[in-house]
């Protein structure tokens, strides 16, 4: 009741949820073109996730295939019967992949398709804890990974964070009711999980670990100094927040229009003129302004151990390297996977630091 009253008041005063404001790109999020100008190591449709194996090699997931990457060349390690949606390695070097609604652990017979009282639906991310268990992000109870736009547009809050013991297959529910859980990691203080539709990181339990982010968070990876790289697969724009308030318009849009042309964030944009366009995105004098409201955007942010943003890399509106889903820091290089363009990108860590004015740790 109080909540309702507060919302009505907020509507009158333009505050709370009725406010359509989104965080601006400033401070650590000040835009640059580091992602757009990054070296392209590999271009391959269907790139989805990557991980560094315990032996130090880089392993990629693209479509149904697991690929080993070395010096610009890839070779197929394994091929599955459906598309891979997440990839990680156990401490003993065994590979773990998620195939949307099930998990396949190398050397373990049979796939795990349920845990903690419910079958998996949309496994978006996997990571390993110090005790050797797996953190599984199950984005939604209703929509598969490919249908994430449906989950966003129905204001989905059915995601779960599950802890899975790879030996016994026993699963514990760490948290449910998440608005599209899309990345999780264990650090010294517990477990961090990304909630995409709420635009923030959350600590296992109830507290938020960050404020509202200017994008939709995806996977999160650790760095050597105890910090994190958080990938944001799309930038936020006010029109999406507005459409989320417009129930009947949203319903009719979902019923009658192809999801490619909805008003939603996207992993890539600009290829098809049937996509919605906003006034700021109308080209003037042949130029698409980089500050135009983003339908798709490339963004990854480096957080310190307390989840404070330090610096970020961008590919702005009009660029290609959008839809960043995984970012890894390996010694002095930062690798980013752009799902929107199907490219593996490399940036130099010192260069990012210098460009962002962050002194060496």
């Amino acid at each position: 009741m109080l909540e309702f009253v507060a919302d009505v008041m907020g509507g009158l005063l333009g505050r709370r949820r009725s406010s359509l404001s989104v965080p601006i790109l400033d401070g650590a999020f000040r835009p640059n073109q580091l992602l757009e100008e990054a070296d392209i190591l590999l271009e391959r449709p269907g790139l989805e996730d990557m991980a560094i194996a315990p032996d130090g090699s880089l392993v990629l997931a693209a479509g149904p295939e697991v690929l080993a990457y070395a010096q610009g060349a890839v070779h197929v390690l394994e091929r599955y019967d459906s598309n891979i949606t997440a990839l990680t390695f156990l401490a003993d070097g065994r590979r773990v992949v998620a195939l949307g609604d099930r998990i396949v652990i190398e050397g373990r017979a049979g796939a795990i398709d349920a845990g903690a009282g419910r079958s998996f639906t949309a496994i978006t991310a996997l990571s390993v804890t110090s005790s050797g268990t797996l953190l599984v992000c199950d984005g939604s109870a209703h929509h598969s990974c490919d249908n994430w736009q449906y989950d966003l547009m129905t204001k989905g809050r059915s995601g779960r964070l599950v802890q899975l013991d790879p030996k016994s297959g026993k699963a514990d529910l760490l948290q449910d009711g998440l608005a599209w859980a899309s990345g999780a990691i264990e650090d010294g203080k517990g477990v961090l999980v990304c909630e995409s539709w709420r635009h923030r990181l959350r600590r296992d339990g109830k507290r938020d670990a960050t404020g509202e982010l200017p994008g939709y968070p995806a996977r999160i990876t650790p760095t050597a100094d105890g910090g994190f790289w958080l990938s944001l697969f799309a930038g936020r724009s006010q029109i999406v927040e507005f459409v989320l308030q417009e129930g009947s318009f949203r319903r009719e849009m979902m019923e009658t229009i192809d999801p490619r042309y909805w008003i939603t964030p996207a992993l890539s944009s600009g290829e098809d003129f049937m996509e919605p366009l906003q006034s700021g995105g109308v080209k003037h004098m042949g130029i698409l302004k980089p500050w135009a409201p983003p339908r798709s955007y490339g963004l990854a942010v480096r957080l310190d151990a307390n989840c404070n943003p330090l610096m970020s890399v961008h590919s702005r509106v009009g660029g290609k390297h959008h839809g960043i889903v995984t970012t890894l820091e390996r010694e002095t290089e930062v690798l980013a996977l752009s799902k929107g363009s199907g490219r593996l990108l490399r940036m130099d860590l010192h260069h990012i630091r210098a460009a962002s004015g962050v002194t060496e740790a």
Partner: protein
Amino acid sequence: MNTLVKLRYRFWPDKIFGELLQKSWMETAVPLLVLLAVIAFFSARIDTFISITSISDLLRQACELGFVVLGMSIVLIVGGIDLSVGSIYALSNLFALYCINVLGLGMPATVVATLVVGGLLGAVNGLLIGYFRMRAFLTTMVTLIVYKAANDMLNAKVAVQISANFPDAPAWDYLGAGTLLNVPVIVWIFGLVAIGGHVFLTRLRAGWHVLAIGGNRRSAYNTGLPVKRVVALSYAASGMFAAAGAIFYASRLASPGADTGKGLEIVVLTAAILGGIRLGGGKGSVMKALLGTLIVLLLTNGMLRMAMSAGASRVILATILLLAALLDIRWFKNRHKAVQELYVSPNYMELPPPQPTARDSGSPFALNDKLRDVETIGLGEVEAPEDVVLDSDNNLYCGNRHGDIVRFFAPDYKRHEVYAHIGGQPLGMAMCQDGTLLVCVGGMGLYRVNRDRSTEKVTDETNRSLLSIIDDSRLRLADDLDIAPDGRVFFSEATVRYEMHEWPTDSLEARGNGRIICYDPKTRKTTTVLRKLVFPNGIVMASDGQSLLFAESWACRISRYWFDGPQKGKVEVVINDLPGYPDNLNRASDGNYWLAIMGVRSPVFDLAMKRPAFRRRMSKKLPGDEWLAPNLNTGCIVKISEQGEVLDVLWDLGGENHPMITSMREHRGYLYIGGIHNNRIGRLRLADADAEFVDLKVSHA
């Protein structure tokens, strides 16, 4: 459900609210409503609140007060405040009575002398504030006290003398009690003064100076207005008006009472501000002062009749003053926001499904890359060439957003010059055989550029429609033209509700805001021939010389209109399911027509067109850059026949080479392409076109 929505948007006039708010007379309408409310309230509470007997007395009081309010209004308009009016009023009352009763000067001499005294008392304020730059509030508060003290002292000396003499001055009594044609004399005089004041403020240079100085003193000074003098004179005028009120008061009551004019400044200020005269200066009118006066007077009388104590009624009046001042500040601060929020008023529009554009759809609109080989002319050198024309020597002319007409020289179009400067953005153009150029100029109207480069206005206004709230006689956005065989110029005006720079906003409305207008060079008359068109854009004469084809952008349709002949007046839709927003139409060498598609439809935008309330909320809640827009980043060129068959479609896939197309012109085997958001002109070789074809008109203008 949809039918209800349709009916609601067809018959409920959403747009008038925003349009009304924009009108400056709306600010007078508010106090008028307050006045009516006050009358209604007290009439319901008090029997005979308004009666024949009371009305004559009320009018006398109103006019006395009205004079003082007029004086205060002038001071307020010039940006000051005059608190001393009450004391000046009292002193003038005393002085007039002394002149007439004790000195026996007679009516004319007394009136003149009192006005002079009032003017002088006010001039003291004026001198101190205007020339010595003292604060108006403090200065007039000091003179309020000083004059009040002077009044008390003099009153003690002369009151007995005044009361002892009964002058024989019928002219004087006539001022206070007489009537002319059953209306009190004071009303006639006040009426004349009020009309004079209205003429002064709205029609005379000096009145404009007063408004200008109140609006912005520094700018007024910088433009050379005598700020100090005008400010000083306004206080003198205020004193004189107070004296005028006092004269009638004196002749009506003949009372040198010590309480005269006490608290008058609060009443007068309340009246002025309730009437809608700005505290900050620069705005106000005689009408507002009148309405404010009536409101306050009826309020005080009403409260008196309801047996409220003087203290209570003064508290109420002061509270009203405070509220009015607060409203004044809030309203002026937020008015433009209210207008902005209310002005955009979307309409219901359901478009037929578009013809498919997919590559393998088999539709005539299937994507191709026939525009891939477009050469560019003037890349980066020309900004916003909406239309292009060529003359018989192959030179190319286009407009730009700086208000020039630029000429590119044949044969290679590498050199260019400013051919003529118009000032507004040139949109549609037509080249005549004699080298005269007719141009539709955004925000200005229809213009002509002669061979000697002189520019001249052809027309910039049409007949005003009877029921339109906004003034639609001016041409806001004339955008394409063609010339009929008899010399009449037909041109389209895209919208009457938006200016040149905000035309994309019209796409959110999808209402028939546009029209087709005809200029007849024989009679030099301009008349609107077709109304309620949805962003009419391109216009081209059909082959029969009696009809024209026109494109309506947001409605995605092409229609034909017969302006002559047996079918005169008929409008027939030729195509109504274009996959994009049509713009200019021009002739092709094979007797067909070229049509520019400036943007393509997207499913979400089409859906939004069916949901006006969604669009209205969007325009209120989101900043302009976040609004959904028609996709103007991709366009194409279509060749259609007079019957609406699509003969050819030229796409530029990806829009890399030539983003945005608003016009094209065929000339000697080439197609020249313009675009309003472009920084280039395109040129495409046409394979099977008549190499001698030129698109020149016969000018009769």
